[in-house]
């Protein structure tokens, strides 16, 4: 009886597949040995990298788990769908630019994967999605070389021919571009923070994407949308992207994009539009940028409505020719703050006359790019005022329905009225 029991137990054990695998031996051996859909829990130690995952697996590390690459390839290549990698630090991918392939901390070639709570350091690209769809990348931190040779390093998240991916709550510092979309459509980026990169977010030939609630700070350019259409940008913050050629958001050959409720604060240029048409800019705040909005004549039919364009050194700079953009839509223009001293006698929140924003700075800028050096100088205000009095400035924008905050309309009118009444009283007293 005992013998039969032992034989039965032996057979049961041989058919039993453990659901969790202990992390002994090399990690690649463990991955190869683990059955599909099992979970590998990693210890608080450094594992050798250049791993290939070719079956659906869950790999979970602890706080100190490091996967270190050889410096000659991808640290982790995900070739099977439905892989989950969590809570690991990935470091030391290949960085050579003379190989056929650009390497990454984690390179994903498959669909439906989840990468969470991962830190990537000392790698060319952080995470690279190559023709990989429906993946989720969240709480990933990519640390680039920062201040190093910007062309000599890759991007934080590189999305190549990949669609329907979600990129959320990631932090990227000091890479070439923060998030780069190349021929990638229908992706969503939410609540990411990108700083000290060339472009925080860069779209090339990528349509129908969306990005919400992201922060782009201290980059050469906050976000650059190039050759890409129908992108929705909402509630993002473009802050302190300063430099001679810096911008919060660049639209270049980008059409039909919806740019809604974003904040452009303290940038070289808040918005820079070149060769782009039919974009809608609504409810955005352009505050204290050197140039609020720079528009090249090659760009036409943008619609600006309900934006607050406040306290920029130059609110609108139009270069190269006629303005063919709309500064109001459905009878609602923009709030120009102190730039516009407007009457609103019927208190309907709209100026009683159109607002023409004039500036002569464009002449200086067209003649000599060194003019941009003076954007933080108070002399420029004096220069502009003198040209305004001489009527030497050109109209940069005409808003036919400028927004006036109720109760704030033309304070100077009331001031003048009080002054006038005061003068009359004083004169009467003097005559007596």
């Amino acid at each position, binding site marked *: 009886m005992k013998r039969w029991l032992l034989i039965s137990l032996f057979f049961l054990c041989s058919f039993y597949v453990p659901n969790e695998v202990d992390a002994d031996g090399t990690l690649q051996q463990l991955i190869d040995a683990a059955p599909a859909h099992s979970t590998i829990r990693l210890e608080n130690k450094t594992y050798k990298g250049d791993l290939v995952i070719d079956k659906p697996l869950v790999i979970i590390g602890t706080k100190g788990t490091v996967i270190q690459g050889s410096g000659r390839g991808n640290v982790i290549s995900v070739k099977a769908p439905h892989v989950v990698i969590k809570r690991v630090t990935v470091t030391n991918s290949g960085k050579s630019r003379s190989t056929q392939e650009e390497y990454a901390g984690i390179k994903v070639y498959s669909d439906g994967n989840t990468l969470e709570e991962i830190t990537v350091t000392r790698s060319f690209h952080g995470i690279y999605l190559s023709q990989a769809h429906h993946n989720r990348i969240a709480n990933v931190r990519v640390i680039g070389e920062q201040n190093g040779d910007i062309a000599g390093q890759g991007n934080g998240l590189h999305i190549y021919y990949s669609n329907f991916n979600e990129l959320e709550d990631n932090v990227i510092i000091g890479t070439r571009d923060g998030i780069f979309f190349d021929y990638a459509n229908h992706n969503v980026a939410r609540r990411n923070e990108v*700083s000290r990169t060339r472009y925080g977010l860069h779209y090339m030939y990528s349509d129908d994407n969306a990005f919400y609630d992201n922060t782009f*700070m*201290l980059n050469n350019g906050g976000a650059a949308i190039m050759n890409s259409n129908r992108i929705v940008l909402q509630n993002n913050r473009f802050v302190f992207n300063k*430099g001679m050629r810096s911008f919060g958001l660049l639209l270049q050959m980008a059409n039909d994009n919806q740019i809604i409720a974003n904040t452009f604060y303290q940038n070289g240029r808040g918005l820079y539009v070149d060769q782009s048409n039919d974009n809608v800019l609504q409810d955005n705040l352009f505050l204290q940028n050197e140039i609020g909005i720079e528009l090249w004549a090659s760009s036409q039919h943008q619609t600006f409505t309900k934006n607050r364009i406040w306290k920029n050194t130059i609110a609108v700079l139009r270069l190269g020719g006629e303005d063919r953009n709309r500064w109001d839509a459905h009878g609602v223009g923009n709030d120009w703050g102190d730039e516009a001293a407007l009457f609103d006698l019927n208190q309907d929140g709209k100026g009683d006359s159109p607002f023409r924003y004039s500036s002569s700075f464009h002449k*200086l800028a067209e003649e000599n790019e060194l003019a941009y*050096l003076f954007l933080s100088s108070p002399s*420029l205000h004096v220069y502009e005022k003198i040209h305004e009095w001489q009527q030497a400035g050109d109209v940069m924008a005409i808003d036919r329905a400028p927004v006036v905050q109720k109760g704030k309309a033309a304070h100077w009118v009331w001031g003048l009225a009080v002054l006038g009444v005061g003068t009359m009283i004083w004169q009467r007293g003097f005559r007596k």
Partner: protein
Amino acid sequence: MSYLWKEWLELSRSKAFWLLFLPVAAASLSVLASVKSLPAEHGLPVFLQMMFEMNVYIVPLLCLFFASFSVMQEKEQRTMVMIVAKSRSPLSFLWRKSAAIQLLTMAVLIVWYFILIVPVKFWFVFHVPPFLHFLLATMALVFMFNQLGILLGLLCKTKIQLISANLAVLFVFLYLYDFVLLYILPSVTYDNVRLFSFVYFLQPLHALRFYLETALGVFSLDYLSRTMKKFFSFPPELFVLLNIAVWGVGALAASIGWSRKGEER
């Protein structure tokens, strides 16, 4: 030491100094309030840079008025004659006065910024080097405008003259200098852009701003055109030293020259 103590007593009792210091403090707090929602990791350089932008307008005013009136007061109250008569030369008076004014104004501002940095540490990740760069830039500003103030205090005979001279100096640095540059801008070409760079950065506000922005890494010099590369080809530290030499040390030298002339008379 006695000079320092005397100066401190005068400064601490001077309502004008504290009235001028108040905007510095208020501006710092308002900047802090406006940036505290920034990400903790990167908020510090932005805060420091914005605070310096504020200082550019307020600190020169504070230093010019405080330093020049401090010298003027010595002349008006005849204390200068007494000090000089007490076996000290006008030159020695100038050295001591300069040192006392510089030390006290710098100390007051440094103490204030150290106090301010306490709440900043709660909001942002604090690194010492950016803070030191900020202090260095601000102190260079203080040094230059204090020395200019002392020179004006020596040169002017009445308070009205002094107020006008102070305002004129502020006007030159804040407005006139750049205004002239804006009008000569069309004649700047690739060939003479380096010369223009020297003239542009001989304005202390430009030089210090450039130094601080590059040191904090908030100003990008990537992807510049050939002209711009040539324009920015000198290290910012060079321009800071040049400004200190021209405006700070230059004003001190002019003050010494003026004092010596007085001795001869």
